[in-house]
């Protein structure tokens, strides 16, 4: 059963940046770019490093450990050393808060 979870205030994320959000034993990465918001799984699919410590460049998140890159809008892995796509989650904004839908 999918449910919407409040993750943070929209102002908690700077433009072209990422923060970490943990909920119910899961970890997520939340992104902001030009006032659009996105959510993905929080750990790199290569070696389970927190992506929130990485670098956001346009619509790409770079893993801080091995520099693997993903398009955080689609979760697409953009080449070695990441070969497995990142899971993405729907988001919505309500009253200045960011919600993600966790299935």
């Amino acid at each position: 059963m999918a449910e919407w979870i409040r993750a943070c205030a929209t102002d908690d994320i700077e433009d072209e940046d990422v923060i970490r959000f943990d909920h119910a034993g899961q970890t997520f990465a939340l992104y902001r770019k030009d006032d659009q918001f996105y959510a993905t799984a929080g750990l790199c699919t290569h070696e389970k490093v927190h992506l929130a410590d990485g670098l956001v460049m346009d619509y790409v998140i770079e893993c801080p450990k091995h520099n693997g890159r993903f398009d955080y809008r689609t979760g697409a892995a953009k080449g070695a050393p990441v070969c497995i796509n990142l899971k993405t989650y729907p988001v919505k904004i309500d009253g200045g808060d960011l919600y993600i839908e966790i299935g």
Partner: protein
Amino acid sequence: MNEHVSNPSVHFPRDYSLTGPLNQQAVEIGLANAEWYKTEIPRARMKELMKRSDGPATRDTLLWFGLMILTAAIGSYLWPSLWCAPFFAVYGVLYGSASDSRWHECGHGTAFKTPWKNDAVYQIACFMIARNPVVWRWSHSRHHTDTIIVGRDPEIAAMRPPDIFRLALNLFGLIDFPVALMAMLRYSAGLLNKDEKDYIPESEQSKVFKVARIWTVIYAFAVAACFYWGTVLPLMIIGLPRLYGAWHHIVCGVTQHVGLAEDVLDHRLNCRTVYMNPFSRFIYWNMNYHVEHHMFPMVPYHALPELHKEMLADCPKPYSSFADAYSEILPTMIKQLRDPTYFVHRELPPTAHPFKPAPVPAH
């Protein structure tokens, strides 16, 4: 002062292969793919330091290629007189040593902001240093995950007891280059060894073979050109500089980890930061800031001096020069010939956070 210690609880000889029992042991006790110590740096400052730019790497790459073309052209013009020697000496270092750092930085994808520029320089540098771009991307990825973890890290330059003779021969590529050429032929035949299969995903393996076959054709053309024109000059331009110009990358590379601790989870214990002259820093692309690079590999080479300043209070004292580093490394390697448990334990300044403890196997 760094402390020189022996650890008699570690039994030698150790099996450094990636398919031996120490791989499994590292996984079981939590040394593999572990969380490493990181110096606390505010996120805003880290974002500044991680920021990518094409400027410095484009300037350095134009200078690098420009100097190679110039020295190779003059060297070839003066060939075979002795006057060509200084030009080929410079060309050799640019080809056989600067390619090591370009392979490294572009492999991380941090040198340039534009991905295709990283990829293009990466492919060229890999050919020059004779490292298959697919094999070494995965090997280096493992090196960063499990830095100097025995049984896990495929890039340990000096296993204990150190093979000093091998290191000396590699100053002129006399082991590494023939081994690389044999590997190229093996990959061309579609074969990977057990260690390579351990760290290269199956989906990537066909790319190894494709690149190796292209390289084999290039080397075959260079050799054929030598026979056709009756001169070794074509191989002085392609291939042989990996021998006569390799010394600088070995001299720099040995300072990175040799003689320091194995099986730890804190890069301040197993990496060295060494101050170097501007020439070496250009050739080595600032990898002398090696603690900094390992702790924060997403910081581009041109920002490492700034990162170094941020981390200084939390790190052991940097080595002041090559001489300072080698005055520790050489005696340590010699001592390790008799006592492989011997290593250098770095000392932290009072301002630093304590070392992160690493798990040890129960005996």
